[in-house]
């Protein structure tokens, strides 16, 4: 939430009174100059390591990403400027639209699912008094694992002779081809893994939002005769809206970046069913070594994330303005 507070200006956070400033002698002015200069030198020295690292590995690649997407780029240094050719090719590429579609479908399954589980976890944690620390830890613990490990475990769970299909077999529901069935099933299975791994974070953010709600409002609602369901729908949720929106945007961005579980669990298959945007980028870049084309895919992802960030920023600022 606070991620988007605007940077402070030079003047605030500091008290304007400076004992030296009251003196106006030449000596005094020279002293002020010396102090200011020393401060500036110290500031630059402290910021220098970060400046170098960011300049080389953040600012430069960001500028390069846009430029590279306008070139045909080979690793041996063979670079040709081709203008917007990569983009026209991209928008004519059925595989690109397939990847974008698969990613969008994945997001549409993943985001509501993770929001629901995270919200349920947060609301329940907020209700209990005993063992709340234990439950919080138990629900958060998958967040510590990698998507790779999550993918490995759930590949085992989803396998045709795995525990899930063994159980389904016993009740006569037959084997379900979680990772090899139709596109929606495969994407939903991948989404489930990401929900398992990731909901603990959003749950804690939502829990914090719940804990910050003033008790008096809930008290007043109870006195006015609201039952717990009414209180939830008309008090808790509306008050939680900014936090819910923050979590929604964050998880949507996470959803668009899905890669690790796909790399481990399906390899983009079956039949490109789970070939996500980042998987497409990875293939074009590191399988076909088509760096310019892959950069154009990167710019598409950047555009998506930028739009989501701007929506969030606008929303947060609108709320502050009230």
């Amino acid at each position, binding site marked *: 939430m606070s991620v988007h507070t605007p940077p402070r200006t030079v003047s605030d956070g500091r008290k304007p009174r400076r004992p030296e400033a009251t003196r106006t002698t030449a000596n005094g002015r020279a002293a002020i100059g010396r102090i200011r200069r020393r401060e500036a030198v110290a500031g630059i020295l402290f910021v220098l390591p970060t400046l170098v690292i960011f300049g080389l*590995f953040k600012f430069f690649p960001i500028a390069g990403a846009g430029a590279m997407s306008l070139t045909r780029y080979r690793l041996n240094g063979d670079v040709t400027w081709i203008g917007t050719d990569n983009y026209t090719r991209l928008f004519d590429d059925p595989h690109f639209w397939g990847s974008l579609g698969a990613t969008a479908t994945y997001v549409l399954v993943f985001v509501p699912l993770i929001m629901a589980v995270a919200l349920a976890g947060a609301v329940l944690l907020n209700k209990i008094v005993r063992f709340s620390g234990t439950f919080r830890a138990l629900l958060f613990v998958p967040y510590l694992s990698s998507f790779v490990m999550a993918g490995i475990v759930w590949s085992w769970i989803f396998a045709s002779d795995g525990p899930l299909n063994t159980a389904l077999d016993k009740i006569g529901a037959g084997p379900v081809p979680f990772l090899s069935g139709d596109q929606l099933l495969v994407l939903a299975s991948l989404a489930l893994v990401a929900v398992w791994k990731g909901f603990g974070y959003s749950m804690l953010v939502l829990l914090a939002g719940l804990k910050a709600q003033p008790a008096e409002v809930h008290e007043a609602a109870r006195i006015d005769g609201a039952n717990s369901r009414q209180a939830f729908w008309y008090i808790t949720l509306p008050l939680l809206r900014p936090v819910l929106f923050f979590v929604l945007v964050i998880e949507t961005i996470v959803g668009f970046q899905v890669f690790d579980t796909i790399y481990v669990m399906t390899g983009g298959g079956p039949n490109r069913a789970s070939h996500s945007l980042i998987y497409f980028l990875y293939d074009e870049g590191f399988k076909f070594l088509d760096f310019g084309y892959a950069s154009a895919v990167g710019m598409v992802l950047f555009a998506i994330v930028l739009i989501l960030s701007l929506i969030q920023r606008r929303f947060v600022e609108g709320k502050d303005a009230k």
Partner: protein
Amino acid sequence: MTTSHPPVAHRSRARERLRRSGPGLALAVISLFTVAPLIAVVVLALSPKDAPTLPHAIPHSLTLDNITRIFDIGEFPVWLLNSLVYSAVSVVVILLTASMAAYALVRKRFPGRNVLLWAIVATLMVPMQATLIPTFILVARMDGVNTLWGLIMPTLANAQAVFLIRQFVRDLPDEIFDAARIDGAGEWRTFVAIVLPLIRPVLATLAIFVFLWHWNDLLWPLVVGQTDAARTLTVGLATLHTETVSTADIMSASLVSFIPCLIVFLVLQRHIVASITSSGVKG
């Protein structure tokens, strides 16, 4: 007959009991969803070779044989070491450089300060994947592919860290710095002896998250470490999974990859909740 209470009261008391224990029961069910796969990993990793195990049977005994055996697989110990260096160096360097930068950006006036701050914060909107290709080309041109420094260096530019520490430094009272100056403390001394101890909560939080991000990272280590000896544990794990290793082996490797995260969490967990709530760190 125990009709001392009318049936309505019975029902409402039962409902009251359900209302009280309902959330706990529901949480127990969700906990089962989160913890059961992890328990399965542990059991599968520790099941004796060729003995019947999950999902068809519960093994009669457990053994550490699989764990010791995977250290003989390929470059497994090297992957583990690579991951340790990648994560540990990143934590130390990011925490130090980001603290220094945040301190200067808040407390020192120098030309270009606001532009730099704005530029760093703006990079938060650029996803890492969008700059993956140019970063890789850059590292390749510097002969950093398949090297540890090539793996580590580009990930040290962590805007999230600078931003969060800055929030913390901004809230420190001016008087502390005035007092330090009056006591004759130099810039470095003020930073090490005053700023760093005061921002310890945010450093502890960031230590957890930076460690987890780097330890569990896949995409960047995957593209920059292309030989067996240059892989991190996560990449190695993904590689093992596509090869034909036994379930016991892949689960043992998973378990080994998970234990450091668990330790970091258990040691520093009291900071996690407080920090997620106040800042919104996202991995």
